[in-house]
């Protein structure tokens, strides 16, 4: 053939085109088969995450409740108090807002929003809204300050100006234990309010500890599973998998029965005389409880990848090492252990990432100091209803996990993972 660069099929069509044509049907079918899953993921995964990301920086409560004022306050230069017109608009907007009953657009919503950034300011808004209709005419500034002298403090207006922006970093500021200083710059929050960073650190530390304990417990079991004769290893495998087949709630509740101060272990220790009846050990509703229960629940996620990798390592490797004169420990360190690394890596990643976002178990047995970041997120989503802060915390958690994943890929390589 003269044109050596392009391969031509017999009827003169370039081979690549021809190939694409013949495989088009296959590719279309493959796409069709994955479509349900793609749609499912889109609806249940991508959209909610996008929503979360959006919520974490977006909050329109101020502009929704007092829209005209929101526009006006954004024009203010932030020096002293806002001009008289802005006060007028604020009072009129508040009177208007008082009449609204629609969820998400009430004065209560506005008060809550400002209260996030200026704790203790809630009642100022609700009482002012009640009394605002008494102010019939100007000057509005003096009238409002007369109503409540807090309105004479420029700080409240600066806070309102910040909150009037729909897109705001304020929730990340809060999630990172920071706050806005009086001059609008960002500084560390008072020690009393520093909860999130500490909790993030605690979550990371506990997850690492749980992962480490899982490795210690899982490695020997996985090894045993991989070398035992089939019948015995099957039995052991069933015992490993048994927790998987019981409900998470049942398992966690079982731990409560076992570990509580009036529980089995304490009763036994008292009965055997190791501890006195008043000296019962607190093993649950604290960090210890969280660690014990989570290790139990996450252990199979460590055992299974380890086992599946160890199963593929023929005993002849160790024998070869021994036959070449390596002492058993040396042979294990140099020959066996390195080959289990892919499984160890997979198990570690799996357990750590599961632990970092774990919710139910710490919620049930964690007490006060056993709570993890996911419990705080849940608190903001369900109780305090500060969704934006919850979303910001969730986004930070997501970023941390992705960061770890990236770091992990750098260090070990995702392609080295073997789950089975």
């Amino acid at each position: 053939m003269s044109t050596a660069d392009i391969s031509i099929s017999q009827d003169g069509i370039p081979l690549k085109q021809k190939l694409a044509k013949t495989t088009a049907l296959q590719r279309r079918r493959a796409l069709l088969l994955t479509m349900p899953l793609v749609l499912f993921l889109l609806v249940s995964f991508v959209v909610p995450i996008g929503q979360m990301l959006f919520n974490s920086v977006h909050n329109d409560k101020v502009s929704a409740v007092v829209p005209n004022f929101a526009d006006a306050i954004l024009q203010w230069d932030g020096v002293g108090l806002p001009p008289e017109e802005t006060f007028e608009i604020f009072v009129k907007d508040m009177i208007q807002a008082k009449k609204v009953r629609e969820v998400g657009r009430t004065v209560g919503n506005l008060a809550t929003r400002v209260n996030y950034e200026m704790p203790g300011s809630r009642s100022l808004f609700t009482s002012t809204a009640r009394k605002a209709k008494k102010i019939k005419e100007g000057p509005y500034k003096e009238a409002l300050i007369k109503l409540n002298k807090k309105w004479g403090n420029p700080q409240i207006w600066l806070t309102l100006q910040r909150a009037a922006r729909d897109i705001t970093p304020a929730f990340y500021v809060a999630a990172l234990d920071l706050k806005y200083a009086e001059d609008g710059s960002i500084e560390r929050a008072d020690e009393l309010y520093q909860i999130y960073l500490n909790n993030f650190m605690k979550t990371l530390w506990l997850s690492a500890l749980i992962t480490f304990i899982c490795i210690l417990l899982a490695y020997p079991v996985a090894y045993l599973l991989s070398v035992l004769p089939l019948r015995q290893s099957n039995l052991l495998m069933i015992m490993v998998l048994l927790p998987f087949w019981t409900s998470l709630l049942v398992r966690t509740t079982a731990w409560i029965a076992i570990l509580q101060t009036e529980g089995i272990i304490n009763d036994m220790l008292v009965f055997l005389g190791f501890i006195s009846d008043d000296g019962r050990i607190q093993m649950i509703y604290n960090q210890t409880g969280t660690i014990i229960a989570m290790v139990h629940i996450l252990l199979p996620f460590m055992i299974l990848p380890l086992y599946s990798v160890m199963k593929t390592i023929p005993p002849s490797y160790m024998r070869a090492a021994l036959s070449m004169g390596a002492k058993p420990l040396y042979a294990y360190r140099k020959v066996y252990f390195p080959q289990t690394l892919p499984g160890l890596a997979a198990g570690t990643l799996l357990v750590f990432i599961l632990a970092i976002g774990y919710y139910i178990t710490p919620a049930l047995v964690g007490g006060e100091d056993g709570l993890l970041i996911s419990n705080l997120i849940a608190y903001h989503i369900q109780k305090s209803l500060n969704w934006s802060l919850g979303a910001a915390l969730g986004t930070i958690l997501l970023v941390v996990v992705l960061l770890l994943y990236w770091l992990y890929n750098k260090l070990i390589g995702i392609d080295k993972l073997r789950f089975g």
Partner: protein
Amino acid sequence: MSAESPLVRFENIQKSYDGEILVVKNFNLDVAKGEFVTMLGPSGSGKTTCLMMLAGFEPATHGEIYLKGKPINKVPPYKRGIGMVFQNYALFPHMTVAENLAFPLEVRGMGKAEREERVKRALDMVQLGEFGGRRPMQLSGGQQQRVAVARSLVFDPDLVLMDEPLGALDKNLREQMQYEIKHLHEQLGLTVVYVTHDQTEALTMSNRIAVFENGIVQQCAPPAELYESPSNAFVANFIGENNRIMGTVTALEKGVAKVTADSGESISAKQVNVHSVGDRTTLSLRPERVTVSPAEGSVDNQFSARVEELIYHGDHIRTRFTVCGHDDFIVKVPNSAGHAALQQGNTVTIGWKMEDCLALDA
């Protein structure tokens, strides 16, 4: 032990895994320095178990194994200094070829320079000098095999054990590797104990072959002796191809057994493993020792046979006859100039000499 004591001695070795069945029953074997001894047998015959006991991975239930005159039952495998090639090579996948070879040297605390020198020499020996930096997975089966052999030799062990090392290779490569290992054995003066279930492999490579069956060594002899004069029916059947005729001994005289086949013919055979008149016997006859249309007086036994099947094999024609009541009697008719032209369904005369027909146990 005397000065010329064998390198390896198995003495009354018994082995049981479950306390009920003996997989090795009273195994005795001496291996001299420089010898290539093969343990041959079907799977489950106990040959690999014997090798594993020698390597130190399985304890002997009874008996003692000596290496250089010293009992080694209580010596752990890493102190035995025995090189070993495993069935699936057991090359460490997370190390390069060079690192694999350096492993036994590193264990022995050898300096870096000497280590590299030795590794290079070992790789050159198996013609893989360029491949030191590769991972085992990047090599072909034959190359992996060579690396495994080189690794077992790199630390100059007194003894090399090979556990079906060629089992995973295709036929051509297997034959080529057989010669390579044989040449290494000759050039380096190695002592090799080799385990295989492939009789051709055993015949090609070994000085001596121990044929295993049911945990017992049936015969231990050089390849030619094993083929030419098997001591029992199992060995005759296991080594090479073999026609069998069942019969009863009617007379024994000067090493010649008169046997009446079950179909009535009288056959004279060499007495090997029958002891008295009236014994049941298996007559064993190699397919290449049978002559078609023999010249008058050239053979001791002569019968008419019907041609059942002809299979063209190039250098010979494999012919299946019905003779003495057996329809699976195989004769290799050489494809030489002027050989007998046979047709399916023809009846011809075939014959063989008395000494080619062995009267073995039934």
